[in-house]
C-alpha cells in the first residue's frame, strides 16, 4: 500500500494536513475480520481501501453505504456489474481464472518439476474453497500437476507457517504454489527460506515474492495496482460514486525468476522460461 500513499501525496493529499488516514489490520486473524469490519464502519470513514476478497467481503457485509475501493479478486457478489458496479465496491480486480494467472503459474512450475508432480498449495481454507482455489485446481489439472492443499490455521502467523511446513519438509511434494492469500505476504521471506530448506521449486504471486527468495513469481505488479487504486480514492473523494468507476484489471502480468534461488536449489531454468521472463534476479 506504500504506492497508494505515495500516489495520494502526488495528488495533493497530505496526511495529517488535508486527509486523515486510519490504518487497520486483521492481524491475520481471519475469524475476526467480521468484527473488525463493523468497528471500521462504526467510525464512518468517507471511504475504505481494502486488500483481499475475504476482508472486502466482511466490509461489504458491514456497509452498503461507504464506498469500498478494493485491490484483489472482486467477485460479482461484491460488485454486481464490473462495468457499472451496482453496490458500493469498485477497484482493481485480479481475476485468477479470467486472466489465466493460475493456468500460467501451473505451466511455469510444470516446466521445472515435470508432469504429474505433486505440488503443495500453501494457503488459507477460505481461499482454497473460493474462486481462487478453484482456479488453482483447474490450472493444475490443465498443466498435469497433482495439487494438494497445505492449509494454514488462523491466525496466520509465523508459528502457523512453521506448522504448515511440517508435511512439506517431510518430502511429500516436489514443488509448491504459494497462494495469493494476503495473510502470507508479511511472511514471504520465511516462506522462501522454508521452501529452500525443503528443496522445492516454488511459485508465488507478484514480484515481491521472487525478490524475497521464491524461485518464480507470476502476477500483477502490486506497485502499479496500488498506484491505480489512488485514482479511485481521488475520484470518490471528489464526489464520484462507485457506480461511476468501472472495475479495472491490471494490464501487465509479469514473470520474475530468482536465479540465485535456482542456483541454491541446483535447478537449471529451461531456456524458453528464461526468455519469457520479464525480470531475472541475479
Amino acid at each position, binding site marked *: 500500500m506504500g504506492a497508494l500513499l505515495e500516489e495520494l501525496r502526488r495528488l495533493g493529499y497530505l496526511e495529517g494536513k488535508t486527509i486523515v488516514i486510519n*490504518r487497520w489490520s486483521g492481524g491475520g486473524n481471519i475469524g475476526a475480520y467480521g468484527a473488525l469490519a463493523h468497528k471500521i464502519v462504526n467510525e464512518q470513514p468517507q471511504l475504505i*481501501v481494502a486488500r483481499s476478497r475475504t476482508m472486502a467481503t466482511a466490509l461489504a457485509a458491514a456497509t452498503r453505504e461507504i464506498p469500498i475501493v478494493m485491490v484483489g479478486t472482486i467477485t460479482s457478489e461484491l460488485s454486481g456489474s464490473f462495468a457499472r458496479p451496482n453496490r458500493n465496491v469498485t477497484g482493481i480486480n485480479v481475476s485468477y481464472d479470467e486472466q489465466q494467472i493460475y493456468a500460467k503459474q501451473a505451466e511455469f512450475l510444470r516446466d521445472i518439476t515435470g508432469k504429474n508432480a505433486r505440488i503443495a498449495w500453501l494457503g488459507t481454507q477460505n481461499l482454497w474453497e473460493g474462486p481462487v482455489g478453484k482456479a488453482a485446481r483447474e490450472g493444475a489439472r490443465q498443466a498435469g500437476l497433482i495439487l494438494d492443499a497445505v492449509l494454514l490455521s488462523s491466525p496466520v502467523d509465523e508459528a502457523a507457517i512453521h506448522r504448515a511446513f511440517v508435511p512439506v519438509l517431510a518430502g511429500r511434494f516436489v514443488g509448491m504454489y504459494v497462494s495469493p492469500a494476503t495473510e502470507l505476504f508479511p511472511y514471504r521471506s520465511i516462506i522462501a527460506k522454508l521452501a529452500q530448506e525443503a528443496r522445492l521449486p516454488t511459485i508465488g504471486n507478484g514480484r515481491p515474492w521472487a525478490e524475497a527468495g521464491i524461485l518464480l513469481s507470476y502476477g500483477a505488479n502490486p506497485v502499479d495496482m496500488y498506484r491505480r487504486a489512488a485514482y479511485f480514492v481521488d475520484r470518490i473523494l471528489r464526489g464520484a460514486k462507485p457506480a461511476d468507476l468501472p472495475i479495472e484489471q491490471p494490464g501487465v502480468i509479469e514473470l520474475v525468476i530468482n536465479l540465485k534461488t535456482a542456483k541454491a536449489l541446483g535447478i537449471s531454468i529451461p531456456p524458453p522460461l528464461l526468455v519469457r521472463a520479464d525480470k531475472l534476479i541475479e
Partner: protein
Amino acid sequence: MNRRDTLVSLLALGIAPASFAQSVLKVPQIALVDTAEQIADMAEGRHPQWARCWRS
C-alpha cells in the same frame, strides 16, 4: 502547533473521535484495511494507530 494541527495529530493517534475529521476539520477521513501487517512493511514503518487498531 495550532488547534487544528493538534486535532489532526490526535486523530492520527486515535485519541480524538474520528468524526472530527469530516465534521470539524472538513478533511476527508479514509480507512486503509489490510489482512496482516504489510501496511507497516510496505509503507512507512510501524504506525502507532495501526498497532492500536488490530490489537485492541
